[in-house]
């Protein structure tokens, strides 16, 4: 492949990557892939992609001018562009991003990545904060952490909880129960895994899996998988839109 053509394709690919990632920022989908803390870094990266693309476009233009000035036979000296395979492969993330409909991690990912009802997730010294928060302000992750770290769960039983998550059905749960679940991301979707609270409600069958719901009710402790796990005796369950930020961060 002639060198100038290679450069043009490079520039176009970088530009396409830039536009693709910009679109992810504008439709708020960047948070479906990475932890919030990387957003700024990614934005810097995206700007840099644009700078590189611009640099390559300039190079193409300069090369064209150079070619006009120089005799044509001089050309073969410059003509050893790297393998075009590089370009094809850079097309892959664009194709995957555009052709496969974007979706955050959901029920089908739980079966691959696992769900836990009690886990460490963060150094224990930060749980003291959780005592101070109103029980209704705690999210699913907070409850899961409390149930992991606290030896005595009695103070929490009967507290009012109000959490948002998606419906996940697990076959090991009895009739009339399902999980309200969230994915936890430390880094990116690769390390995501689900935490959940059991929801106990007579109308358990009416909710489709992956529906986003807000569950309100009193908390109870049950044993799931041999570990003490939080359960909500649901008083109200309302369907809510998927939050802008579908994951929780440890």
């Amino acid at each position: 492949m002639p060198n100038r053509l290679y450069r043009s394709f490079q520039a176009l690919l970088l530009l396409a990557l830039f536009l693709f990632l910009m679109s992810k920022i504008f439709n708020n989908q960047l948070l479906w892939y990475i932890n919030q803390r990387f957003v700024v870094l990614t934005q810097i990266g995206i700007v840099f992609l644009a700078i590189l693309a611009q640099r390559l476009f300039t190079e193409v233009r300069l090369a064209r001018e150079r070619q006009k000035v120089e005799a044509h036979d001089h050309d073969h000296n410059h003509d050893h562009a790297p393998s075009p395979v590089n370009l094809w492969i850079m097309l892959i993330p664009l194709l995957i991003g555009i052709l496969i409909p974007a979706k955050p991690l959901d029920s089908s990912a739980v079966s691959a990545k696992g769900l836990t009802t009690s886990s460490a997730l963060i150094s224990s010294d930060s749980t003291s904060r959780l005592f101070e928060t109103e029980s209704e302000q705690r999210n699913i992750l907070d409850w899961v952490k409390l149930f992991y770290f606290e030896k005595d769960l009695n103070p929490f039983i009967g507290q009012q909880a109000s959490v948002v998550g998606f419906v996940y059905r697990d076959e090991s749960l009895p009739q009339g129960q399902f999980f309200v679940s969230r994915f936890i991301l430390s880094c990116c979707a690769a390390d995501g895994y689900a935490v959940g609270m059991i929801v106990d409600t007579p109308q358990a069958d009416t909710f489709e899996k992956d529906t986003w719901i807000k569950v309100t009710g009193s908390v109870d402790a049950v044993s799931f998988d041999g570990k003490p796990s939080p359960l909500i005796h649901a008083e109200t369950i309302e369907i809510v839109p998927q939050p802008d930020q579908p994951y929780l961060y440890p």
Partner: protein
Amino acid sequence: MTATTASRRASRTVIWFILLFVLIIVLASIVPWSLFLNLVSRLNLFATVFLGIFIEALPYLLFGTLISGLVEVFLDRELMARFISKRPVPAAITGALMGLVFPVCECGVIPLTRRLFHKGLPLPAGIAFLLAAPVFNPIVIFSTSAAFGWGPMLMWRVGLSLFIAIVVGLVFAVEQDPSNVLRPMLMSVHDHEHTHNETLSFGDKLQQALLICADEFFEMGRYLIIGAMLAAGLQTFIPQTSLLAIGSGQILSVLVMIALAVILSICSTVDAFVALSFVGTFSFGSILSFLVFGPMVDIKSTLMYLQVFHRKPVAYLILIPFLMSLLAGIAFNYFAP
């Protein structure tokens, strides 16, 4: 490459695409609908995980290639020769500590190391840098301490990584001729401008660094992409739960955590937070080996190594850290559970 082989290759590609298309259609008509839906949701999971790894690693790779470009145009060979000894032991130690100067993670360190080799960095120093820098740099030390506190986990992680890096660096000191280890660097277009590098202005040099950065981004990016695809594929089809289920026992638990480090392929700047989620389930030793081995070897970095080194050195780069972190993890499991 002549025109005929090129066109033959192109027509072969077209045939492959048609075959693939036919295969998809046939499969879609045979396979029951529910399995098909399952496959679609798997595909969604694959895409999300793949883009997750790719987007997260992208700025780090760009940063690494940018530094590499800057090193190429601004760093003198003489300057480097003055700072880094030719004798193996001091070279390996300086190399291992160089992460403090170049804060890069495992995606960025590979193009940078290659560039430094190109500038005449001795083998032991470069190898030690390659293995130690993803852990021994301010960003990673800070994130590890944020996850585990300034405690034994951080100390052992840093200490063990430096130790392994220096040992592997010294192993490579046996080889006198770097060309037996390093694959020749692809001479791309910018190299013909080398000769009058000295006369270039600062702005021109910067422009040239950007061009090198772009080339290297494409060259290394392809391994990041293939590696991320492999990792996402493995995660989609091997449930993590089944891996964790076999993860008990003094030796097996270490092996499972090492396997997980390879499959997850996450950046060393954040792997400490991921490791934290295994604290309840896994022992100190297994998590330590996850934190030590993960930054040195995973799917995407292995592919990038193959671009820089010959096959045999890559085998050493993987096997020695593997055995050492495995032994360390097992030792902790037995003696300090």
